[in-house]
């Protein structure tokens, strides 16, 4: 690890100013990924601007009944927050499916969104990687890629975004609030992470010096149930092979509301818009779900060793939708 500077700004404005002051500055949240990458030589910041102590850790109800999540709220705290467990269980489940207890205690909301791919070539500085060193090539495409993308990848990059939390936030239509040298702006979470295209070095649309200050959730969809499920190689402390976040409301046997997002399959949380469009207003039956998922996954382009992910995504999503439908009918049976 190369020597680096370390500063603890007193305010968000100062943090942004410090980071914009020159190249090579990085915001430090929980450090659970950035510090690893520094040890691996992937990142060599000139200065770390530690934002973990800024007063951005609050989780509060918004005026419209949504939820504002401060960027430095710890993953553990957020997962256990009563408003989250009550109104957005999919988010709590996703958080608890990620990493380990110790890491969740340290990891922040903003840092979680900005974590980098765990593609083994990206993490190994002795090898080419277009994300780490643009133009150097992508050995993953022909190499070790069982864990990598099946959707939205490019000839330059087949990396996946590793976050669980972000998949739930994608399904919840969250918004990311950014503070930069030119002021504040908001970006929908589904547009926050990019597809790799020809510039896989850019994971997100964040601009130089911009700081995530909060993530805002709209009010929960009335009457909808939600669920996060993750398939992985071991029971804990493993990244998703595939994960599914869904919210669903079924009325009189028809889908009134559905959002669906996949993790572990693309360079960003994959919001399954096509499937959602097929589901909306359609009968809540396995055949309909199946058809919608097949339509969504028609554009999958799996690599040699991750063909299984197409099937795994379909199966897991089908099961989640079935589970949510069953819960909705049980609920309506009780209340009806």
């Amino acid at each position: 690890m190369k020597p680096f500077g370390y500063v603890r700004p007193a305010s968000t404005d100062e943090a942004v100013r410090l980071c914009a002051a020159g190249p090579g500055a990085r915001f430090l949240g929980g450090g659970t990924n950035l510090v690893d990458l520094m040890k691996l030589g992937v990142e060599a910041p000139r200065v770390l601007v530690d934002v973990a102590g800024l007063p951005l850790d609050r989780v509060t109800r918004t005026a419209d009944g949504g939820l504002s999540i401060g960027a430095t709220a710890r993953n553990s705290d957020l997962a256990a927050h009563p408003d989250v467990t009550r109104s957005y269980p999919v988010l709590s489940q996703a958080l608890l499916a990620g990493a380990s207890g110790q890491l969740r205690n340290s990891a922040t909301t903003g840092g979680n969104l900005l974590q980098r791919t765990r593609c083994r070539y990206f993490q190994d500085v002795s090898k080419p990687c277009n994300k780490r060193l643009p133009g150097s090539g992508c050995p993953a495409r022909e190499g070790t890629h069982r864990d990598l993308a099946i959707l939205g990848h490019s000839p330059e990059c087949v990396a996946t975004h590793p976050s669980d939390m972000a998949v739930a936030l994608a399904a919840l239509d969250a918004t990311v609030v950014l503070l930069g040298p030119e002021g504040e702006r908001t970006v929908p979470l589904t547009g926050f992470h990019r597809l790799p295209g020809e510039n896989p070095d850019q994971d997100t649309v964040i601009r130089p010096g911009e700081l995530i200050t909060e993530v805002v959730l709209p009010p929960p969809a009335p009457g909808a149930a939600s669920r996060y499920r993750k398939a992985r190689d071991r029971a804990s402390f493993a990244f998703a092979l595939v994960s599914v976040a869904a919210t669903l409301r079924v009325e009189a046997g028809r889908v009134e509301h559905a959002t669906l997002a996949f993790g572990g399959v693309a360079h960003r949380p994959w919001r399954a818009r096509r499937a959602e469009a097929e589901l909306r207003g359609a009968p809540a039956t396995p055949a309909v779900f199946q058809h919608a998922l097949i339509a969504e996954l028609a554009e999958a382009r799996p690599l040699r060793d991750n063909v299984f992910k197409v099937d795994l995504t379909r199966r897991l999503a089908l099961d989640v939708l079935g589970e949510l439908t069953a819960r909705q009918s049980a609920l309506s049976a009780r209340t009806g």
Partner: protein
Amino acid sequence: MTTRAPQFPGAPVVRREARDKVTGTARYAADLAPAGCLYAWTVPATVAAGRVTAVRAVDALAVPGVHSVLTHDNAPELQEPDDPILAVLQDDRVPHHGWPIALVIAESLEAARTGAGELHVEYERDPYDVTLTDDHPGLYTPEEANGGHPAVRVRGDVERALAGASVQVDATYRTVALHNHPMEPHAATAVWADGHLTVHDSSQGSSRVRESLARAFGLDPDRITVVSEHVGGGFGSKGTTRPQAVLAAMAARHTGRPVKMVFPRPQLAEVVGHRAPTIQRVRLGADLDGVLTAVSHEIVTQTSTVKEFVEQAAVPARVMYASPHSRTVHRVTALDVPSPSWMRAPGEASGMYALESAMDELASALGLDPVELRLRNEPETEPDSGRPFSSRGLAACLRDGAARFGWHDRDPRPAARQEGRWLMGTGVASATYPVLVSRSTASAHAARDGALRIAVNATDIGTGARTVLAQIAAEALGVDPEAVRVDIGSTDLPVAPLAGGSSGTASWGWAVHKAATALAARLAEHRPLPADGITTTADTEEETGEESPYARHAFGAHFAETAVDAVTGEVRVRRLLGVYAAGRILNARTARSQFTGGMVMGIGMALTEDCGIDPDFGDFTARDLASYHVPVCADTADIQAHWIEEDDRHLNPMGSKGIGEIGIVGTAAAIGNAVRHATGARLRELPLTPDTLLPYLL
């Protein structure tokens, strides 16, 4: 009345150093920082085969704090080491990816590492081959497999017996390369002072490390002290001398200052050995009653171009089941890979996965209960050698385990049980591990004030060796274990073998028992004690030198209940139960942790662990603990170890067999057999990850 807990043989005495370890006061090899200590960082080769043509160190040496850079051009010249993997920085050859090609030495770890990043290395690349196949053109039959076992053994006419068998199994199983990954990485701190070399090394046996260093540096062993006071696991990877000891000593000699070096986790995979991958064809022939007529076990495996190491995976088939016709064969090919080596139960762990899976296939083919099938093939004598068993508790373990596990209620039909979304199944497999013992020396001392001290260069790699040796000495001396001080972990103590082959306690304990017994006799004669006390010494050369007329092995049975997610193919082990017959158990607490630790490692072998090898770069792809998946707590729900007391007079004075490795043997087969019972899918390649199960799920 005394309130002291009874100290019966096998008492669950708490590890003596437990408090030191959990409070962080126990000192490991890299915890020392002698005054003026320098730090060394290795630079691994980034090509899989070839030569180093240039190392430009100007930029590295310009890094503030960098003291020097050692390469094959300027490193101290070594004598031919006793293990070719120790011939580091001696020539320009790169035999595999990750081979150390330079050492950067600096005033701080950070400077050493930064310097390493500034080193410019040029290579001449040779073509390379890192892929094991069952028809690899380089395959040959070696003389011996690991452990000195003949590579080939043939009894009778297997082909004919197979052809004539009423029921046959012919199946090929594959295991992948695995890594030991002990918690503590390989580390050494070396000091040269007044012509004496002292190395604190993370090893499983410092006597052996001292021999290696003496040979490599051309030194009298008396001028070398190697200390391994506390060792954070080894699982075989620290059983042989590893490059960190040589590199640290080299750097200390070159600089004239103490040097510390720790292999970082991602480099470990390529310098401390791996369990070689295997391709194993097992053929079984049986009559309709399930009595075996033929057993054929053929191994294909890999070694490196640096040395020959042959995973002796067909050896357990020479021990397990009666059969008039048998053929056990090892073939190996030298690839451009790091040198494979010992990993917990080398041979048995891989071989029993295949053999015990094939036995399950045979039971299915016969429609016979797999426990019953094994019981029907119990041999009178060791099948391969014809020697009588000193004791053989396999049948007892199978019966006891079956009762404890609730095996007899089992519905044998595959894919017939579901709990929610989980497909449930159970499986069984046998386990075996040989009784090994080596010559050891030890001393026992009674001071005038009555204080008792045992000295032996044993190594505690986390097993509780200090504690068990105190128990052995205390029993011989007729005192409480707490009254006995035990000094281990330094070559300044009486010479002793390494902690490996599940033989440490037997080897050291025998010498300790002998010295303590002699001391007890002397103490009975001498009252009062002389001013400088009484010392007795023991050497078990004679006792351990004779070959036993008996076949001596520990046995065991593993029972697994697995749940397979019908949607995702994720496999979870709900229950794992092992029953062992391993002679006399000397400490119930530390023994249980050895057994269950082996079982947990078996879960990893079955379900999650896979180094992966990258054919494009020639390196292992899973080199850290984020990508190399060892089981976590959530993977180890209900794990039980039980044992059957054996009174075997043909072992050693304690009556013990080794227990450090048998827990992993057969565990993967039991899990694989349970997965087959749960799903109907017979997978023959480990690990059983979700992608491998998915094609078989509805």
